[in-house]
């Protein structure tokens, strides 16, 4: 059987724009890595104007019923009983060992209805967790399309096409409104660390929504952007990515491949004193014992990078797009961790990496070495542990 990737509801609009055929696979869907051969312009739109990103491949579950709060509160690490209607929580969820299965956003659409997004299929886990509860779980991934409108001008663009009171829509809140008459749910969320919105629309309304935004956004420089641009932005924002920075406990083959929320810099999402949830006991123990690993930012020292290239007679070469992989992190020649994502930040003008290091080396300012391949040779560049996020824009919350 031939593998055929699914296309998102926006495909008829995005496909003609992918000039270099730089497609990629995301959760079984075909999406653009970039529309231009290089993501520079798309990244610039995220930080300076507004970018339009098709994020429909996210898994989306509609969870409704009298026990919806009870189910979700036992599922995720954050306290869902304190989630107001119209609020969105970013949260991971764990297995009984307190190891992360996935992460996503949980939106409270009304008193008894939530939408959970995830990177991986979670229907089995949700259904198992809901046993004995009065709740319905529906996988609405196929018929809910999602667009991220991200960038400093996102609000201005959206205001021209939607009657919603966007000024009152706070960070991690949502509202139900319309865009040129198309019913949409607008959430003040994103994966870029910038001012931005995510728009949730019935698949039927996807194309008119795209057209409306592109038209209204033209004077503001709205730019369709692909995953490469998004990847640069999310590394600057210090946001973890499943299957890149960590692996779901469902797929871990060995204990070393497991991560707890504390080990992913997500300790702030764990409410160990709320009601029972899967993994609570293990996470309480871990909190008491102290985490083994930490997820940190690394800033790679420019001078040391320049030196390594100069030894080979070259000027420093920088990755044109974010890399995903694994690069050893060392202290005094001994490995203390590994970096899983890295990029040159066009905005910060720094070579950044996201890394796992043992807790003892997680202190801000700790000097480490990052293994890099310089002209076919393994070298070590100096780097320094930097708090996340690298980029913390005020307008993100504004």
């Amino acid at each position: 059987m031939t593998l055929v990737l699914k296309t998102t509801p926006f495909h008829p609009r995005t496909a003609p724009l992918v000039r270099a055929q730089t497609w990629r696979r995301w959760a079984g869907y075909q999406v653009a890595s970039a529309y231009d051969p290089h993501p520079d312009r798309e990244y610039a739109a995220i930080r300076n104007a507004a970018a339009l990103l098709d994020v429909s491949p996210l898994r989306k579950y509609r969870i409704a019923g009298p026990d919806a709060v009870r189910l979700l509160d036992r599922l995720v690490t954050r306290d869902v009983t304190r989630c107001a209607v119209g609020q969105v929580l970013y949260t991971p969820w764990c297995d009984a060992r307190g190891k992360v299965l996935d992460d996503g956003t949980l939106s409270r659409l009304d008193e008894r209805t939530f939408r959970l997004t995830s990177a991986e299929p979670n229907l089995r886990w949700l259904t198992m967790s809901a046993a004995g509860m009065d709740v319905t779980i529906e996988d609405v991934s196929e018929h809910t399309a999602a667009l991220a409108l991200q960038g400093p001008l996102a609000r201005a663009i959206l205001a021209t096409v939607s009657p919603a009171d966007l000024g009152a829509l706070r960070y991690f809140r949502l509202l139900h409104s319309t865009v040129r008459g198309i019913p949409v749910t607008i959430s003040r969320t994103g994966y870029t660390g910038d001012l931005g919105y995510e728009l949730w629309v019935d698949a039927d309304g996807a194309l008119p929504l795209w057209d409306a935004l592109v038209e209204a956004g033209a004077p503001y420089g709205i730019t369709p952007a692909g995953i490469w641009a998004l990847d640069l932005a999310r590394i600057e924002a210090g946001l973890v990515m499943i299957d890149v920075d960590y692996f779901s406990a469902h797929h871990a083959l060995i204990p070393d491949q497991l991560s707890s929320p504390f080990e992913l810099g997500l300790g702030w999402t764990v409410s160990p004193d709320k009601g029972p949830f899967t993994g609570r006991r293990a996470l309480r123990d871990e909190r008491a014992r102290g985490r083994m690993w930490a997820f940190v930012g690394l800033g790679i020292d420019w001078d040391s990078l320049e030196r390594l290239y100069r030894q080979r007679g070259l000027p420093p070469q920088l990755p044109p797009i974010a890399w995903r992989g694994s690069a050893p992190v060392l202290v005094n020649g001994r490995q203390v961790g590994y970096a899983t994502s890295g990029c040159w930040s066009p905005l910060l003008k720094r070579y950044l990496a996201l890394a796992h290091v043992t807790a003892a080396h997680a202190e801000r300012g700790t000097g480490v070495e990052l293994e890099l391949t310089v002209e076919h040779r393994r070298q070590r560049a100096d780097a320094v542990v930097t708090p996340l996020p690298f980029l913390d824009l005020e307008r993100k919350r504004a």
Partner: protein
Amino acid sequence: MNDRHDVIVIGAGANGLAAAATLGRAGLAVIVLEQSGAVGGLQRTVEFAPGFHATPTAADDGWLPPAMARDLGLGVPVRTIPDIPLTVALAPGDVLPLARESRAAAEAIRRHSARDAATWPAFTAQLHKLAGFLAVLYQRPAPDIATTGLRDLASLLRVALGLRALGRADMAEFLRIVPMSVRELLDDRFECEALKAAVAAGAVRDLRQGPRSGGTGFVLLHYLVGAAPGSVRDRGYCRDGPETCVAALDALARRNGVTIRTDTAVSRILVRDDAVTGVALASGAEVSAPRVLSTADPAATFLGLVDPVWLDPELLHAVRNIKFRGAAAVVLYALDSLPQRGGLPAASLAGVVTLTPQLDALERAADAAKYGNVSEHPHVEISAPSIRWPAVAPPGKHVVVARVQYAPHCLKDGNGWDGARREALADRVSHLIDTAVPGFLDRVLHRAMFTPADFEARYGVTEGALTHGELTLDQVLFMRPIPGLAHYATPLTGLYLGGAGTHPGPGVMGGGGWLAARRLLQDGTGP
């Protein structure tokens, strides 16, 4: 009821009483909560017709583990072993009695096959020996493969060898027989159909599978743990009456200071911060204790009594997937007298009489259950406890108990176990007995039918499974009830499982409860 309790034991069957007696002896304040009106659990007799008493589950008197009796100082009730534990009804007036004394049995078998007659004594001796090895395993917690790997099993095997329980050849035979189908095991050795069918029927007891299923070799051995040498069915009967074992455990528990409250159904196990705090009763009252030992089956306990938010979804999933699959029904008959002419000898009815002389008939009966139907020609075995214990019936009258397979709990279609289906099966059973024992029907004063649905309603056993979990190979020893829960403690602090759903399982009187209580004590009973 508001007194301070150290442990609440749910259920006053053999396991609950054994657990309570063990904990009481250690000085703990123990209260046993029993939903029905009396102690005894599945062993309890009821008066099913005026003056007629029997156990609706048709439970035999099981096996009381000697190590438990020694540990608890329990006086072991005197047992009577029937001279003829098992008889095959071949045709009216024609039987194959399998006497306990193997030369006598061989003599009867010789009429059908000289070869089988020659093989029989060695076969029963081997079964006895191999069941003896299981008896070693059944008086200690199951080997802990999950955490210590195979070393633990190896050391256990060495223990068995050291004890001279088994020689090397026997061990090899044990490992060969356990996963085998009983049919292959018997085909290996015998040619007489009736003989094979009789032995095989013991290997499918309370199983929804037939004799061609893998692992029935194990079930055969399981129910022969504690059986007298030469016997291929049951462990004998308490001389002083059908409830002697549980009565002894009951008396011991009370002597050890245990409070036993009947007519007290538990509706929920209360949990706070991953630790048990007590139970809520159906009446609405609550009983507090930092420990709860449940002898309800694992599904009834985890799915029925505990709020799922406290348990790992994976664990609940595994519990939901436990095979219960009750497939046995029981019909109790009150008889004016036992048929004489063409009837079965009283010596046979004092033991078990099987009405299925063909191995394939047993398999076909199981086929129906596989597809959610009641067997067209069910396997029926009967016994007359009134011969052993005249007091269970009015003077001169009798009780006949019929065990019936296959009557699956989960039926493919229709209205489940409605009145019509119940009556139809009871009629079929009566007819089968009357064919084998002409004149039987004329003597029936009263009959009472118990289906898996009745067992579920009466005893709270999931899917009407008297086993608390089918004895398939993936659900025994360190995998009973599920891997990771085999050592009585649960992920909830203070909650222990100790019913027949735990190792060593059904038919071992008090075994699971005793081992669970010991585990609880080992874990410490500090605050």
